[in-house]
């Protein structure tokens, strides 16, 4: 694309260069198109920057994406669990940085950057050549002379490798390989298959064979069901760790009402995002029942509400939220819902279920029922 851009630039260049022929600065500096191209590049960069800003918080994940490109989805998940095990078994510890995923990530990014810079540099040189054809006259002539006479001029190692990989008959000598084909004036050359292309093709074929063997013969590669099982195992392990670490693990058995205003506010936020669609923002109910009255379909009180939210009542259309909300979040939203009791919604739904009385239920701790009582009292006032 860059090449063609510069080609377009050449459009008007012909007329302009004749005008500024006497000027001393290099052609490309005087050419309006150079600035046009620079402008476009700036526009592009600005666009990219704008995009970058608009979802800044995702940037971290995007960098890791480059990494995942090479590792299968679940292998990435397994990555997190692996180092923990490794530390246990290995006696000789490699340096930390070698074990760290970020090291490879950074190395990869640096590599990509270097490649990009090289490509940009090459493109730039080509660009300059197109806009100002005489900028590298000396070099060009020697190169051409070399091609025609076969004199090996300035043949660096890299150039030799390059020529080997391309294996192309120079334009000046193409008469030698011109076939006698002529289709409506179109002729054909008989260049060899570019070796880099040919070997690339072979490599993909070999890769394909290895892939099929690994996944379907030797069983080295994990198919999707197995990958999924691994992923679940990792998650289960993580959950176990969490359980161990969290001193007070909240369940419907031990959940209490939160009274802290900040926590209630969090609950309100969760409610508005997830619950208001069915129960309305003011709790008056629509698809779901009214949450402000004293009647409950599946039992009132903190424990029942927590349980209903956690597991849902699929038969009645209440979905389970345990996959989407953590126990702590469910506690918060439960606590918020309890503050709704006795409020006056705009369009309350008729009462459903049985009346629930805030009596100190059996098994509840003193503080628990006290908290409920306070909330209820506060609401009554």
């Amino acid at each position, binding site marked *: 694309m860059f090449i063609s851009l510069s080609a377009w630039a050449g459009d008007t260049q012909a007329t302009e260069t004749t005008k500024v022929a006497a000027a001393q600065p290099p052609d490309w500096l005087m050419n309006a198109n150079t600035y046009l191209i620079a402008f476009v590049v700036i526009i592009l960069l600005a666009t990219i920057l704008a995009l970058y800003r608009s979802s800044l918080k995702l940037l971290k994940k995007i960098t890791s994406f480059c990494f995942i490109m090479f590792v299968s989805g679940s292998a990435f998940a397994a990555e997190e669990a692996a180092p923990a095990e490794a530390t246990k078994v290995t006696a000789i510890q490699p340096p930390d940085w070698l074990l760290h995923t970020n090291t490879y990530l950074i190395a990869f990014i640096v590599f990509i950057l270097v490649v990009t810079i090289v490509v940009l540099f090459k493109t730039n040189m080509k660009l300059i050549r197109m806009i100002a054809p005489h900028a590298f006259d000396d070099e060009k002539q020697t190169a051409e002379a070399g091609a025609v006479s076969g004199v090996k001029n300035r043949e660096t190692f890299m150039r030799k490798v390059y020529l080997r990989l391309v294996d192309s008959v120079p334009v000046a000598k193409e008469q030698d390989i011109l076939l006698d084909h002529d289709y409506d004036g179109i002729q054909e050359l008989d260049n060899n298959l570019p070796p880099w292309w040919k070997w690339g093709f072979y490599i993909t074929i070999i890769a394909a064979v290895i892939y099929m063997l690994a996944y379907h013969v030797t069983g080295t590669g994990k198919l999707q069901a197995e990958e999924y099982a691994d992923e679940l195992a990792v*998650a289960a392990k993580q959950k176990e760790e969490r359980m161990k670490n969290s001193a007070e693990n909240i369940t419907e058995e031990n959940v209490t009402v939160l009274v802290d205003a900040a926590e209630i506010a969090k609950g309100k936020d969760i409610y508005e995002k997830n619950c208001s669609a069915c129960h309305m923002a003011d709790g008056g109910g629509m698809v779901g029942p009214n949450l402000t009255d004293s009647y409950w379909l599946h039992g009132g009180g903190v424990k029942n509400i927590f349980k209903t939210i956690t597991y849902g009542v699929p038969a009645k259309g209440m979905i389970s939220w345990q996959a989407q909300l953590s126990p702590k979040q469910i506690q918060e939203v439960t606590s918020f819902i309890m503050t709704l009791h006795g409020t006056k919604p705009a369009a309350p739904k008729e009462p459903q279920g049985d009346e629930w009385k805030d009596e100190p239920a059996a098994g509840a701790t003193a503080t628990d029922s006290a908290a409920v009582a306070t909330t209820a009292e506060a609401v009554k006032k």
Partner: protein
Amino acid sequence: MTIEKFRYDNKIVAMFAWATVIWAIVGMLVGLLAAFQLPFPALNFDAHTTFGRIRPLHTNAIIFAFVGNGMFMGIYYSLQRLLKARMYSDVLSYIHFWGWQLIIVGAAITLPLGITASKEYAELEWPLDIAIAIVWVIFGINMFGTLVRRRERHLYVAIWFYIATVVTVAVLHIVNSLAIPVTLFKSYSLYAGVQDALVQWWYGHNAVAFFLTTPYLGLMYYFLPKAANRPVYSYRLSIIHFWSLIFLYIWAGPHHLLYTALPDWAQSLGVVFSIMLLAPSWGGMINGLLTLRGAWDRVRDNPELKFYVVAVTAYGMATFEGPMLSLKSVNAISHFTDWTIAHVHIGALGWNGFLTFGILYWLIPKLFNTSLYSKKLAGIHFWLGTLGIVFYAIPLYWAGITQHFMWKEFTEDGVLRYPNFLETVVQVVPMYKLRALGGSLYLLGSLVMVYNLIKTARAGKMVANEDAEAPALEKNYVAHDDHWHRWIERRPAQMLIGSLIVILIGGMVEIIPTFMVKSNVPTIASVKPYTPLELQGRDIYVREGCYTCHSQMVRPFRYETERYGEYSKPGEFVYDHPFQWGSKRTGPDLHREGGKYPNSWHYNHMLDPQTMSPGSIMPSYAFMIDDDLDTTTTAAKIRAMQKLGVPYPEGYDAQANKDLMKQANSIASNLEKDGIKVMGNKEIVALIAYLQRLGVDIKAEKTTASVN
């Protein structure tokens, strides 16, 4: 050696050229409407212009109307000259032209009416499918007649590609479109579920291969060396990349179904053949770009060469990206996101669009015996188009990656960070706006081209029949060249059979076992046929093109099963004629939708999605609440399903409507409990019935298993 005089038919070429130009603008306008509908849902004006109906109209218009006519334009021009012969029959040429345009008009009428088979890029219903097959065969006869009457001994590489195109598109179209008609405007795919998905993506992927790629490679091989006035870089490369391309392409379809319920072995074949496809695809790019060696200076002055260079480069980029997206780990990221949309538009806008524009800039002056009205305007078009592509693609790549990471992120507590799918939609809406801007730029550039071309045509006079002369082919030809491939280049029929065999292998190896070997789709006893009401509801789902935004395929990833429920099993889709897995999630997956929300939620959500999901970009389907369900078709639908092997009891068609009303009334009374008054005979009730059925059967299996 006698020199024969004959005349090339330029009029048919000009007709196809103007059709290309007109449909390009129409197709892009429809695409632009779809692009603006995403950030601005108010643009879903009524039932006929909802995104679900507009999007298939856009894809069909671009593929079959714009690129299709562009292909015919290029083939009718180049074929005559490469064979030194007029088209075989003018009558066939005109039947081909007008037949094709009528089919397009038919598509433009039926798709907004919701008459659709819902298979991507094969949405047209069975009468139009038959028309396509007939017109396509007429095109084939016309081409082979010309081949027989040729005055050129050997077939040029462009013609190999044309032959492969004709034969493969015929095979793909016919096999994928096989269906049992129910009414004039409704049919059921012959295949169900996993098998339907495999056949569809075998077709879908090869629509890209043999409708958007091989004919256009053929065009490149004619128009690029013509414009550059340079010999083709390598004849040997042409041979190798042609045969390897058509052989490998046909296998790659399953890469559209990675991590789905498609059997693992078929997925793996899709992966490896996509990887191997990289080199053959790039073979075309290399041969094109290297043909420009020594002519790069001409790229400055030739508007058409500029377009060709970007087109071939875009082809190279898209065909590199394709194999990368076929790697399972990358596909896990890109699939169902906007990344795929960005990818195809590099191909459509860059490769097909720019190549067509380049040909038009070269061809119209030739046909009208004049020179291009304004090179400067062509330059402006080039820039607007290029910027359009950039502004189109970058935001969508960004959106795609954003979607993926938001879908899969877990909090430290082990729950989804963005459990509400809507959050992931709202996040990318700004990208949709930028994409629409990119599309607008591209369209603007195309309008500049239309003006330029009209001015050019006005300045000249069309040469309807161009005089030409060439010696007739000698009867007793003795081959004197030694390259083995020259043999088949003298034999169009063998070329046809050769390509047919080559393209059949891959399809057969993948499709036949998936149908024959039972273990590929293990039966689930609890999966039962749809009730008549659910079946009618499903057909509404199909009619509305819900699949354009909602998948029905929960992939085996923890972040999907946590969000949607158990991952989808092959046995769950055995009664799905056609399958509705979808390929894009603008909204959430619906395979486990059944029982998730109460009926009243669905009712309110279809009436006005924004009330139930503030910020949603889904169109309103309020018309389903007013429209009566057409129950006259129920019996015929049941009978058609029985023919397809769906085990409804004998004679069930007679009592299906009784069951239908019973179920409908029970849903209506359930809605009434929530204060919603709706008659049981409305479309919305059927749709709710279907949505509530989605993905629930397998749960019964679980219950029985645990009871045992």
